[in-house]
């Protein structure tokens, strides 16, 4: 019974810095560090789903006006602002480089499900899709672009043509983009988006801040590697993974065979 008050979410195993960083990103009670400010209009332009300051297009009438068949569940779950207004469902897609990224696709899924409501996400090898109601998406995008999980050089908005996350960085340290959506402005030292996520040329280029310096990149890196946290740092994680693999196999073979010693 003493356990009742003792439960605190584990979130993630590991004692090293990388594990600690993962734990922080996926714990919604811990805030993400803010690195830059991006205007809401710029976010609307980058997403390219609607014209700046135009009204939200709706896919169905506001929830209060729809007559739906009776279902008590619909009165329990609180809908998001976008769902309540009947917004269209729109998307943002990020690609994260292999080279010391501040977040990676698998981590995005966990972060999205921990921090946002009403999310539809799909994880791929080098990109991550996030679909939400339009106004919810714009709000979430602000968090995703302004905080520590976005390094303008190593993470990119790539609505289409995502190829490039596993390629070498270019001479300015930027992740490859076949559509050249962003360039490094040597005069200002900033990464500037000259195209929106769909590759349409923007009327006014949008700067998203300078690439992070190498020591910052190392500090914010989410992946284990020889020059961040080496192999042995992952002891607890390996224990979880090997145990999970073994128990999944045994549980699939005979669910009754699992016992507390395993």
């Amino acid at each position, binding site marked *: 019974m003493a356990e009742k008050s003792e439960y605190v979410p584990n979130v993630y195993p590991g004692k090293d810095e990388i594990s600690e960083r993962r734990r922080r990103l996926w714990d*919604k009670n811990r805030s993400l560090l803010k690195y830059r400010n991006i205007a809401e209009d710029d976010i609307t332009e980058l997403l390219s789903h609607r014209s700046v300051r135009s009204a939200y297009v709706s896919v169905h009438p506001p*929830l209060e006006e729809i007559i739906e068949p009776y279902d008590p569940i619909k009165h329990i*779950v*609180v809908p998001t602002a976008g769902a309540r207004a009947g917004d269209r469902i729109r998307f943002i897609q990020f690609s994260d480089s292999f080279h010391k990224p501040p977040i990676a696709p698998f981590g995005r899924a966990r972060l999205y499900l921990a921090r946002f*409501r009403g*999310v539809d996400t799909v994880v791929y090898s080098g990109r991550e899709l996030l679909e939400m109601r339009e106004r919810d998406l714009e709000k979430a995008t602000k968090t995703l672009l302004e905080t520590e999980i976005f390094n303008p050089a190593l993470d990119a908005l790539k609505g289409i043509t995502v190829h490039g996350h596993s390629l070498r960085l270019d001479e300015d340290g930027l992740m490859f983009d076949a559509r050249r959506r962003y360039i490094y402005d040597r005069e200002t030292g900033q990464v500037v988006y000259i195209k929106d996520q769909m590759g349409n040329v923007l009327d006014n280029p949008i700067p998203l801040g300078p690439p992070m310096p190498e020591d910052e990149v190392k500090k914010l890196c989410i992946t284990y590697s020889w020059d961040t946290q080496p192999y042995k740092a992952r002891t607890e994680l390996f224990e*979880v993974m090997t*145990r999970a693999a073994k128990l999944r196999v045994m549980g699939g073979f005979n669910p009754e065979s699992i016992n507390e010693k395993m």
Partner: protein
Amino acid sequence: MKYKDKIDIYNDLSKCVAKDVPIEALSPVYNPYMGKILDLFKRTAFINLPKLQNCIKEGKAGWETSTGQDECKMPWYGKDLPIMDHAEEIANGIRDRIKVGGEDGEDIVKLIEDTIVVKMPKKVMEIAASRDPVYTWVMVSLAQTVAEVFGIDPIKDLNTTNMIKAVIFGRYPQSTTFSPGAPVSSFLKPSNTIDGLGCGYSGITVNHIVALANKRTMDGLALASILEQAAQWEMGNSIGWYERYNLLGYAYEGYNANNMTLDLVKENRSGTVADIVYSTIKRALDDGVIKVKSKAASGYRFYATNDFPMYNAYELSGTTAGVILNSGAMRAGQAASAAIAYTHDLFLYETGGLPDADTGRMQGAGIGFAFYTHSIYGGAGPGAYTFDHVILRGSGFIQPLIVAGMCLDSGTQLFSPEMTSGAFFKIRETFPIFQDVLQKVGESAEEIKNDLKG
């Protein structure tokens, strides 16, 4: 009883409808209500008369996709037969042809608005090796009746005779499948198109179930669970080692056992999916289903269980709550796959490697489902999938959750239940058995709980 587990069943208003029922009372083998639902699904055929009339008139037959229904159009062979005006006569003709002596008094043919609903006699189904008489008997008797009512024969009118056959049977037997959306249909697919042993009850489209439950989430969950559970039983996936695992799993996922799913949803009604995972694990810990096994150097706790089938049921309940919360917040069915796939990732890392629901199969099937519903490898909206689709069949617990997600959709889908399954909303009104499914499963379990012998 074989198993000691007893549960309470709550309806979607959190009212207890069955107290201390043994889990066997929720087996399709014992639960009488489930038996009735399955019997109805197996024995019922529908004849869409306006469609029949229209197809014969326009010479439309043998199409192969539901969106390309005018693929083969031969109006020069068409004939304008006033089928709708003779609906009663056609219904009587079919009744005369398929009734067998000594029926138990139930009316096997009913004309409901413009649809003839045929419930095949039990005796015919008993002597059949498959459930195909639902198609064969109904189709042949319909063809004969139409020919007789309108006096058509091959000497007088060869083209119309051929067209009647083509409209009713499509390209069969040159093609093994009937045309999707053909005038004669049934709940289940014809047996020659079922891919895999025991997948019969698993061949139903998600949106059909959503329509049959009239988009009431917990009823949709319960109805989908009855069907998928029956399929799992037929596949042999619930024998011996897997019986308690499946009984508990469906009880917590589909029938709101101990009100756990609803409790989790209520507790986190404005929370996130990760909150649901934490609440589920806390509850498992409080109920003694899992316990702390060891603590690592970082303070990370490894959990262990002696009762994995029960913990699996808790996880399934948590996943159900996660899907309800995620799709409910977004009010969109497409978000179900994200919750199905990645809730289990959270469960796995939260417990230190205790297997996630259905030992990883849910996560695997969920990720595949996400790919195929997000235009990555093509595919369609979640509502257009059948339960036995190659993407979904990896786990028997994934289908009810997709139904729950689609019930909560407020009109964002191209493949909406209204578009793909309009007729099933009407069928629900015709058969009162489809109303308050969850409540009826519970009441039925309550009725038999004292008569069960293990």
